[in-house]
Structure formats: structure tokens, C-alpha cells
């Protein structure tokens, strides 16, 4: 009995560590692929790991009080908790019957954590970034919730494990083909959650100098970079689990998550950035309509396939 607990704890810690490294490698992939699209050689894949080590090595990191410090911790904590909910390669760490909906909301926690810390920093650029981020999250809520409902209605369950089980068999059982509307909406919302173009409005470097992150440096930024990388992996894994037939073995895990990440990277490199009100009205128009369609499809046709 005690041995089981120890093994479980070790597996959890190992998994979290692996996912953290994987998140940083994913950011490395993003930078490398972007560089190739820019026709450059680009940094090595392990570059973000070096960046994080360097940021930890700063001798006098600046702090603006407890809330400021907590912001980066909340971001990383939220991302780690979300990661533990995912059934990756048959490993079920925190899985329970309602984990899909919890995961969906935990994935917004990193952004909220950054907003909280940034609001405490007092820099006007942070303030602008914070309200932009909050508006963006508000705009994403409606289509996001509708799409999540559509997925739940489609599978008639809220457990990720069962969703994976329902997609087995043929490739046509995948969520992508069962409910393409919800799949498209979640992909668009994912861009907003991951803070990439055309939704990188909160941290627009050319407008407001990284927005919420402008005052973060050193250890705080290291935590945030790690959280951001992890969020990237969590989103890619979640998408593969819900729409691409699950990640039961290492090969499908790598192939599917990298595929999802590459899609985001390609979109990020060919789209400019929206203004916040344009992004808001876009999110409440097309993705919302699509999500409604998806919901109607799921309710009318049910899980029948």
C-alpha cells in the first residue's frame, strides 16, 4: 500500500518534470519553426531551457510585493494542475469523472495569474496589458463555454478518459470528424489562450512592450516562461485527447501534440495582430456562431455516428 503511494508520487513528480521540459522544448520548436519561416537558422531547440537557467541566475531580481510574486506562482501552479488532469499514455494522475470541465477552466489560470501579478506592478503598460487580457478572456468565454458544452453533449460525458475511450476504433470516431464545429472553435480559442497572433493583444511587444510581463524579470519571468511552455503542451495534449483520438502511446503523443503546436505556430507567423475591440467582436461573432452550430449538431444528432 505504502509502496503504491510512493510510486504514484514519483510518477507524478516525474511526469510534471517531463512536461515542464517538454513545454520548454515546445517553445524551442516554436522559435525554431518561426525562424525557418523567417528564412533564418534559428536557435537550438533547447534554447528556452538555457533562457530559463539564465533567468534563474539573475543576482538581484526585482519584486514589487507579495501579489507580484504570487502572480507568477499562480501561473505555474495553474499550468501544473491542468497538466496533472490529462490522461497521457495511460497515466491517470488526477483524473475524475468531471475533469474535462475543470481542465478547461484551469487552462485560463496562467493568464489570470499573470494579470494579477502585473496589476500589482504599477507600470502603466502592465495596466493596459491587464485590461486587454481581461477583455480578451471575457470575449473568449462565450464561444469557449458553448464549444465545451457541445463536446460534452457529443460524448455525453465530462470525463477525459471516457472521451478517449469513445474515440477508439475508426479514425472517423475522432472528435474532429464527429463535431468539426467544436474542434474549430476550440482551436481558435486556443490561440487566444496561448497569447499568439492574431490574439497576442495583451502582450503586444510593439505596442505596450510585453504588456503584463514588462516588469517581470529574473526568477519571476523564468516561472512565467515555464508556465507558458507548459500551457502550450497542455493545450496541445488536451486538443489531441478531445479531438484527435487520445494519446495512449508515446509516439501518438509526440506526433499529435507537435502537429497541433505546428498549426498554432504557422498561424502565428502569417497573421498580424488585431485590435482588442476587433478581436472581441470577432470572438462573439464567428466562433460563437460555430459553437452554437456545434451544440445544435451534438444535441440533435447526439453521439450517433
Amino acid at each position: 500500500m505504502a509502496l503504491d503511494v510512493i510510486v504514484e508520487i514519483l510518477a507524478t513528480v516525474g511526469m510534471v518534470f517531463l512536461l515542464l521540459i517538454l513545454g520548454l522544448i515546445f517553445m524551442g520548436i516554436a522559435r525554431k519553426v518561426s525562424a525557418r519561416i523567417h528564412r533564418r537558422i534559428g536557435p537550438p531547440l533547447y534554447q528556452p531551457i538555457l533562457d530559463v537557467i539564465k533567468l534563474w541566475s539573475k543576482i538581484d531580481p526585482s519584486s514589487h510585493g507579495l501579489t507580484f510574486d504570487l502572480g507568477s506562482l499562480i501561473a505555474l501552479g495553474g499550468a501544473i494542475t491542468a497538466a496533472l488532469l490529462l490522461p497521457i499514455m495511460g497515466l491517470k494522475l488526477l483524473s475524475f469523472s468531471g475533469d474535462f470541465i475543470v481542465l478547461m477552466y484551469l487552462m485560463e489560470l496562467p493568464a489570470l495569474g499573470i494579470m494579477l501579478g502585473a496589476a500589482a506592478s504599477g507600470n502603466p503598460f502592465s495596466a493596459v496589458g491587464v485590461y486587454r487580457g481581461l477583455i480578451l478572456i471575457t470575449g473568449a468565454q462565450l464561444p469557449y463555454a458553448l464549444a465545451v458544452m457541445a463536446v460534452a453533449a457529443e460524448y455525453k460525458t465530462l470525463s477525459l478518459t471516457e472521451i478517449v475511450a469513445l474515440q477508439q476504433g475508426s479514425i472517423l470516431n475522432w472528435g474532429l470528424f464527429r463535431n468539426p464545429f467544436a474542434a474549430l472553435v476550440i482551436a481558435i480559442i486556443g490561440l487566444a489562450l496561448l497569447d499568439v497572433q492574431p490574439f497576442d493583444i495583451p502582450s503586444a511587444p510593439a505596442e505596450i512592450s510585453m504588456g503584463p510581463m514588462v516588469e517581470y524579470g529574473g526568477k519571476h519571468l523564468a516561472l512565467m516562461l515555464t508556465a507558458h511552455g507548459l500551457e502550450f503542451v497542455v493545450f496541445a495534449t488536451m486538443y489531441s485527447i478531445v479531438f484527435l483520438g487520445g494519446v495512449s502511446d508515446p509516439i501518438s503523443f509526440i506526433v499529435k501534440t507537435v502537429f497541433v503546436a505546428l498549426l498554432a505556430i504557422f498561424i502565428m507567423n502569417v497573421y498580424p495582430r488585431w485590435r482588442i475591440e476587433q478581436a472581441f467582436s470577432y470572438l462573439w461573432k464567428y466562433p460563437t456562431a460555430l459553437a452554437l452550430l456545434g451544440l445544435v449538431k451534438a444535441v440533435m444528432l447526439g453521439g450517433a455516428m
Partner: protein
Amino acid sequence: MGFQVLETSKLLNYARARSLWIVTFCTGCGGVELPPTATARFDFERFGIISTPSIRQADLLLITGYVTPKTLKRIIIVYEMMRNPKYIIAHGSCPINAGIYWDSYNTVKKLDLYIPVDVWIAGCMPRPEAILRALVKLMRMVKEGKALGWKRYLENFEFYRKNQDRLFGKDWRKREIEKLRFYIHD
């Protein structure tokens, strides 16, 4: 005590050398050669160098050309806002001896009287190859723990402040901070 480890650790110095982030602050003509250095032809991201708009995140300040007193105030403030360890590369002839503007009333003739410079690049205008060479040299210095300009600044702060006060007049920091009150917290 903990600082000693932070300063001399080989792994940390390697990571510092391979991940120099430049603060996006061009001070003169030299800024025109930075985009070519960053893009396809020369691509300094190979070495892990990127430019960041946030001062708090940056490690490296490039003084890209002549420095006027008004810019120098901002340079000093930016330099003091960056977190240690931090490095400076002075770019072109102008920071060395004001170059072609040697007789101008509004250029600073010797930059290292006011802030510590780690690597100098001579020439006007330095080619991207020269900039890359300086960056690689700085990387080597950081790796060996020899780029200690930030330490010189802490140790000889009285000297630098005396020179700065002579140029800008006493209490210039207070006046600048009044202008930039939202941006400077410590």
C-alpha cells in the same frame, strides 16, 4: 555567500553567455545595422540572442552610436533598471571619441566616464560581421566570468556619479525620476 556561487558557477555562466537578451534601445545611427544582424543574412538568434522591449528582462545594452546628454540620462536610467549581471557593448567610433561629431557641442565624447563598457566596436558604421564578432567576444567573456562591467559600476559608483553630476548638474536623477515617475520603482 550565495552570490559567490551565482557568480562563479560554470553552468550559470554558460547559460548567461548563450542567452543574451538585448534591450530594444537604439541610441544613434548604429541601430540601422541591427535589423540586418537579426535577420536572415546574419541571424544572431543562432546564439540565443533576442531583443526584448522590456528593460527588466534584458541583459545586454547596445549603445549603437553617438550619445547626446539627453540620451545618456536615459541610458544610465535604463542601465540601472536592468538586473545584474548586465553588459554593455558600445558600437561604433562615436562612443569612443565622438567620431565624426568630435567638435559638436551636443555629443558625449567619452562614454566610459559615465557607464562601464564591456566591449567596444570601432568603425563607422560597424558592419554586422563586426557586431557579431563583438557579441561572440562578449559571450566568451561571460562564459569565462570576465565581463564584470556591472561589478565595476557597483564598486566605483562614486566615480561614475561624480562624472554624471558634472555633466548633468546635481539632482538630475530626481528631475528625471519626476518625469518618469510611473516607470521607476526602486
